[in-house]
């Protein structure tokens, strides 16, 4: 029994070491980017989608009711035609932040929500595509109230609340950017 136990320990130990070698600091980001590309393929299977940063001028920034970094919002294009927008943000979980993205259609309806990087053991269930599908088709912050419109997840209360209010905020933010003529 003890020999088998030791064998398992050694095997697990080497697994950890093996995996650690591939961490160049961008490890988590690379996986996140793979997820983004995979989502594009799912949404637009016959298109080659490229993404470009949306430039927000200083004047526009001052007029906004929220903060936005220069690399959070992207225009998605297939050649020259606009297919949508990609908005990336972070939100707090129980012990760490997680990163997620919302893909909007040209008319600002939510096409997809995905969790890009989830860093802790608690509340990761919000990554479930089925659960995130609740936000698809919604627009302008409407129909996104947690418990009213959005189903909870047992054992993931903090991250559910956090991502729900985050998505609603992004949906309202992008509408504000449209109203101001930024996009």
């Amino acid at each position, binding site marked *: 029994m003890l020999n088998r*136990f030791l064998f*398992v320990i050694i*095997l*697990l130990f080497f*697994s*950890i070491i*093996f*995996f*650690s070698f*591939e*961490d160049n*600091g*961008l*490890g*988590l*980001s*690379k*996986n*996140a*980017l*793979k997820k*983004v*590309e995979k989502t594009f393929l799912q949404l637009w299977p016959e298109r080659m989608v*490229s*993404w*470009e*940063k949306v430039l927000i001028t200083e004047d526009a920034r001052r007029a906004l009711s929220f903060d936005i*970094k*220069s*690399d959070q919002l992207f225009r998605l294009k297939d050649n020259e035609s606009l297919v949508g927008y990609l908005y*990336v943000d*972070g939100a707090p979980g*129980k*012990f*760490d*932040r997680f*990163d997620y993205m919302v893909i909007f259609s040209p008319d600002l309806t939510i096409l997809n929500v995905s*969790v*890009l*990087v*989830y*860093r*802790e*053991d608690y509340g*990761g*269930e919000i*990554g*479930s*595509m*089925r*659960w995130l599908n*609740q936000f698809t088709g919604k627009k302008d912050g409407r129909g996104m109230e947690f*418990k009213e419109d959005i*189903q*909870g*997840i*047992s*054992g993931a*209360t903090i991250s559910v*609340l956090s991502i729900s209010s985050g998505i609603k905020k992004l949906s309202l933010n992008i509408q504000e950017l449209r109203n101001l003529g930024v996009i």
Partner: protein
Amino acid sequence: MKYLFVIVLVILSKNIIGQVTGADTTTNEPLNSAANIISGNISKGVTLGAYAQIDYNQPFSDIARQNGNLDVHRLVTFMGYKFNDRTHFVTEIEIEHVIEVYVEQAFLSYMIDERLNFRAGLILIPMGILNEYHEPPTYNGVERPNLDAKIVPTTWREVGAGFSGKFDDLSLKYQLYILNGFNGYNGSGKFRGTDGFRTGRQKGAESFMSNPNLSTKIDYYGIMGLKLGLAVYYGKSQSSLYHGLDMDDIGAVKKADSSIVGITMLGLDVRYQNKGFEARAQYILTSASNTLQYNAFTGKDLGSKMMGYYFEAGYNVLRFLKDTRNKMTVFARYENYNTHAQVDAGIAKIDAYNRTDITVGLGFKVADGAVFKADYQLFKNADTSVDGINQINLGMGIWF
């Protein structure tokens, strides 16, 4: 054993393949800028939180007057520290009944991939709902269900190491740990017929190990509003008689072997929520082997099978009131737990250990994480000569 090896190989190979073919599938300029923000806004940091419950229990009996009990039952602070994107330390420090200090969790976790996290330290055993999720505003009733207290036995935490991870495309998360087991013998027998292994919990306080135990759980979250859990625990209890044991001394070896039991525990749990309605159910089955020898040796009355289940349903009666964010959940729970579901020939089966609790009550949630509770409990058991007790409970629970 073989399967564990295969699982690890599969995960390893997926990573190798990823590295070879997924080299650079993107040719987009935003690669670096997106990577910048995705690497997290907080590079390091402390998170602090707490939960607490204060209870008033007032039993009633037909034959005798009873005093009430008021207790600052639990006050728990938790701290999380983020060393970097992959490395976290999580701890919960608990003060029970004002004077008992315990550590409920304390582990270092390293995320290799979201499908594979390594964790080592004092870990909560995943078994049933409450052992992992026990913040007072997350369950109904002032007190934790007795099924969890007596049979699980919550709060159950031991020292060990293992893995956890999630597969979002399958809506599955898993946990797998190797830990020290219950202390069944340390000069005298520790287990009891009335509450099984509860007194054998070592809780990380200078725990000793004569046999490693295995704990695993899978949770499924693919159906909206539903969370399903399946847990298995396997191992032998620990005994001080193995320490310094001369393996050639047959008498001593036999004695040591009589001071332990084999434990196989199975837990099933279901949680459902949809708008104002919530329900949960749990089933725990424990099979203990070698109990005949253990009871004969220690003079204890440990059952060879313990079994329990509960069903609970609740509804937020304030749901349709427009002006309030408060929630008033009215609930009812039916629970049956029997620590003598089966006993060996050497001991008498005690009917009083076959217990049924009925709890009816409400929880008035005035904020996310703050709740006032009140409930009425009927405690019955299969021994008709022992009177059932009724009890009113009032309490508060917080979590932030």
